[in-house]
Each structure stands twice: as structure tokens, then as C-alpha cells.
């Protein structure tokens, strides 16, 4: 599991790659928390294009990022989600809380 970050004009893109499950979720959450606190972006994009697997642990990561961004007065959405990860987000109906854009 890898977490990369690109910044441009107040917008932060977090690129997640690998398998996002409970085993790695806590580490991913604290990396994202640290990136938000350090950069205070206006917009934070969770780019899920590199994920080969994700379960409900990923939903908690998205919801927590959304809450953190709301706390600092910014916005969050999900991009490049496809395949198995997209099916998980669809089944959970997460689109009602955080916008999800597929590939």
C-alpha cells in the first residue's frame, strides 16, 4: 500500500495504490491526516486509480478524510475509482456523502 501526494494551487491529490484493507487502513489514515494538517488544502482529491483491492476499511478512510477536510473548511471527493473498489463504494452508497467519479 502506497500513499503519494501532489499539490497545485490549493488542491491536493492523494494517490492511493495497492490493497487498502484493515491491515493498512490506520497507517493510510494517519498519512492523510498529516498531509492535510501540513498543507491545509482547499480541495483534497482521493485518487483511487491505483488500488487493486479495497474493502469497507477504505470507506472509513474516505469518511474520515471528508470529516477532516470539512473541519479545515475544505472539500473532498474521490476520483478514478474503478472495478472492485467502485463496486464496494456503490454497494455502500457512499456517493450520498462524498462524490465519486469513476475512470
Amino acid at each position, binding site marked *: 500500500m502506497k500513499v503519494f501526494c501532489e499539490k497545485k494551487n490549493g488542491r491536493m491529490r492523494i494517490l492511493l495504490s495497492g*490493497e487498502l*484493507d*484493515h*491491515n493498512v*487502513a*490506520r497507517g493510510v*489514515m494517519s498519512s492523510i491526516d498529516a498531509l492535510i494538517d501540513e498543507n491545509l488544502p482547499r480541495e483534497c482529491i482521493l485518487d483511487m486509480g491505483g488500488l487493486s*483491492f479495497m*474493502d*469497507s*476499511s477504505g*470507506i*472509513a478512510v474516505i*469518511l*474520515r478524510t471528508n*470529516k477532516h477536510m470539512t473541519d479545515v473548511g475544505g472539500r473532498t471527493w474521490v476520483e478514478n475509482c474503478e*472495478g*472492485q473498489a467502485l*463496486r*464496494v463504494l456503490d*454497494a*455502500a*452508497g457512499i456517493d450520498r456523502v462524498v462524490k465519486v467519479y469513476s475512470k
Partner: protein
Amino acid sequence: MKSMNYIKVEFPSSSVNESFARNVAGCFAAQLDPTLEELGDIKTAVSEAVTNCIVHAYPDKLGVVLMKARILPENTLEIVVKDKGVGIADINKAREPMFTTGGDERSGMGFTIMESFMDKVKVRSTAGKGTTVTMRRRIICRKQVK
């Protein structure tokens, strides 16, 4: 008649075993010739059930998780995930979307995902004794192209 295949795997409730368990289930399911999407559904449901044992059944110790899988008639896969942990007091409540006792590290969507990805999900639990989740999924038979 062809005898029906099965596996039994036992492992400690350590979170490194989450990916191990779903990949074992995926490898076993491969003999039913699933599509990538069906395989993904099965691995996801197993990941949810096994993670629940690791997170909820044994909250502050390592316990034993037993996973069984077998092939049933009509190209159907059955997976059983069993723990001897704390158990679930109110199963109906636990299965409701967004119900969680896991705080903000969990989303309460595990059972909802298992239910939408498998044809059947049965939960049996006794408080203080443990929980057994039984899931079935029929794999669509596709015509062999030769």
C-alpha cells in the same frame, strides 16, 4: 458423480492474515471459472467477514479464526468464517447499514457489502461464545469457447 471439493484453514486473528484469507478463498473459487468481477465480490465478502473476527470478535487479544470453503451443486461456492470471540448480542441490529461498535475507524458497512456481493449470508452468534458467518454465491456457468 464428481465428489465435491472443500478446504479448511485456521489462522490467528492477526490483521496480516486478512489478505491471506481472501486470496486463499479466491484461489479456491477459481475452479468454478468465475469472472474477474465475481472473484472480486468473493474476495471482498471474505475480507469483510475475516476482518470482523479480527476487529470485533477478539478486540484485545489474538484468537482463532476458522475459514471453510466448499463447492456445492449448481456451481455454488459456500464460505464459512467462524470465531470463538465475544459474539453479537443483536444480530439484526448488527446487520443494519452504518451500525458499528468500531468508532470512526469503521464504517458499519461490512455486512451490507457481504449481503450485496453474495447470494445468501447467514449469521449465527452467541454472546460470549462466538460467531459463524455462512455465505453462498452461485457462479454463472459460461459457455466454453474452444
